[in-house]
């Protein structure tokens, strides 16, 4: 009885011919892709590594993603609400954490957007933009782009921000942007001096970062020079007595 009623495996699939089946599959992926950007906001979406799955699926996923990012950028440019601007910028900065978004972010000129926001008065916008830059500047193409667009200067000026996260993103970004060619700029004397001050900070996160900057990215003579300079000019916070 039971054996008679149970259809053999695979019978179900015969109902849909293979070509249609494939189309159906595509439809499912496309649907998933279309709604997927809504899931993880404001934090980045889970990304599918580019190499897995069928090409159809990847295409569908990525079409959805580009459109979604485009919508974010458009909203950012169109809206008058500061709140919405902050939210969207935070969204974009979180998307910048994930390497699989880099291509789209470049396409949509989000790097320029981030760089422009560094000189805003609104501290939140600066924090989010700096976070976004910190997230994407390890990538070679992005790095070159930022260096070409003379992005190091505004990043260095972020070191004097009163916002803890902005400062830390700036320190990390400077480390990540240091190349043999950009070294002179990223480890300029004022920067090293600033790092010396940070390395004495009571804030462990900041002092750790600054120590790494001094140890790994600056030469001992550079540090020494900065140390002498800060002794003479006594700018910034007073050094603890030793």
């Amino acid at each position, binding site marked *: 009885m039971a054996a008679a009623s149970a259809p053999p495996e695979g019978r179900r699939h015969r109902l849909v011919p293979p070509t249609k089946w494939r189309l159906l599959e595509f439809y499912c992926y496309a649907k998933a892709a279309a709604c997927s950007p809504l899931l993880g906001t404001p934090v980045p979406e889970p990304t599918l590594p580019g190499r897995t799955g069928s090409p159809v699926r990847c295409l569908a996923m990525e079409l959805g993603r580009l459109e979604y990012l485009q919508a974010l950028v458009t909203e950012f440019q169109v809206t008058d609400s500061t709140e919405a601007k902050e939210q969207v910028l935070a969204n974009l900065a979180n998307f910048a954490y994930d390497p699989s978004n880099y291509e789209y972010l470049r396409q949509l000129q989000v790097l320029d957007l981030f760089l422009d926001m560094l000189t805003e008065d609104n501290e939140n916008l600066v924090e989010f933009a700096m976070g976004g830059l910190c997230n994407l500047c390890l990538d070679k193409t992005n790095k070159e782009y930022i260096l070409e667009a003379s992005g190091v200067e505004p990043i260095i000026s972020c070191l004097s921000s009163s916002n803890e996260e902005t400062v830390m993103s700036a320190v*990390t970004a400077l480390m990540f942007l240091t190349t043999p060619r950009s070294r002179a700029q990223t480890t300029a004397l004022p920067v090293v001096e600033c790092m010396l001050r940070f390395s004495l900070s009571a804030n*462990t996160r900041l002092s750790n970062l600054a120590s790494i900057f001094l140890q790994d990215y600056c030469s001992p003579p550079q540090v020494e020079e900065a140390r002498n300079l800060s002794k003479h000019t006594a700018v910034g916070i007073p050094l603890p007595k030793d």
Partner: protein
Amino acid sequence: MAAGSSGGPGAPCRHHAQLGACESRAKYREGWRPRAVKVYTINLESRYLLIQGVPALGVMKELVEQFALYGAIEEYHPLDEYPAEQFTEVYLIKFKKLQCARVAKKKMDERSFFGSLLHVCYAPEFETVQETREKLQDRRKYIAKATNQRDGFVLKKVEGPKKTASKNSEHDCPWSTSESQVATNWDPSYFTSSPGVSQNTAYPSGNQSLLPSPHYDNNCAEFSGYFGQNTSLTPSVPPGGHTLPPSLMQQRMVPSYNGIDRFMPRTTHLQERKRKREEGNKFSFIGTSEDNTEVVIGPQLPEIPKVDMDDESLNTSATLIRNKLKEVADSVSTSVEKPESSSVKPLVKQRRRI
């Protein structure tokens, strides 16, 4: 001065504070869960997790067990000096891998635990300079790998086994068993959508009914497909990595179980050896042994009947998938067996096929 003075370890930091969820988000930017407007960078992440709101009921063991589900824990202790609400405690847990800390934070934040809502946040201020340095280096390596992969450029770098392991740490969390983990596992970003939907995107819907395979198999297949060119799956899985679940307790038990440094009289030694040998045999019965030196007797079982799909191309793809699954399942089971089989290696015994 850029930052406040309250940044030292053990003191409450600004980034520990839970920001209010954003209420004014445009519809298309709304997620399933209400979230604050916050940007995560590598600076904010850490292997250290600070857990607030743990009820003061002496439930440290349960707490640690719960967190150990997401990966090996290196260290944990209560933070007595950290300001806590009445009748609650604050704990610090240090994971071995950042990826595990990410998943644990995602899963455990705002979870109810013994009647109280946990607040889990990263605590990077507990890192040493060296730990911070390693974290940044891992991120650097990960980006290099991810971006090269996308350009179709295969980076073939010869590295020591230890380094490779740490490289894998970014993505590899071999302890994952739950199906939601499947999504997070091969996901380079730590923000994942709800398990149900990622399931949809992760599996071709048509195949789901055909392949009654354990979830982690599928996951491993994806994983090895993605990182296949420079990391083979089997060596990256630490021995015993698939013990489920590898709570801290179990890990601790392993050394005492082997009983190497305990004093034992000779007779006990002999008995122990005999017991081990028997155990080894038991294991080789269960596992699929690839070892060719093994002598197998007894009638061979018929193979699992193949499903005929009545279509050439469907059959071909079904076979491909089946083979892949088998391959993955084999590599998993052999790596699980490793510790035992290495100890029984010298004796090759014939065994009966069941």
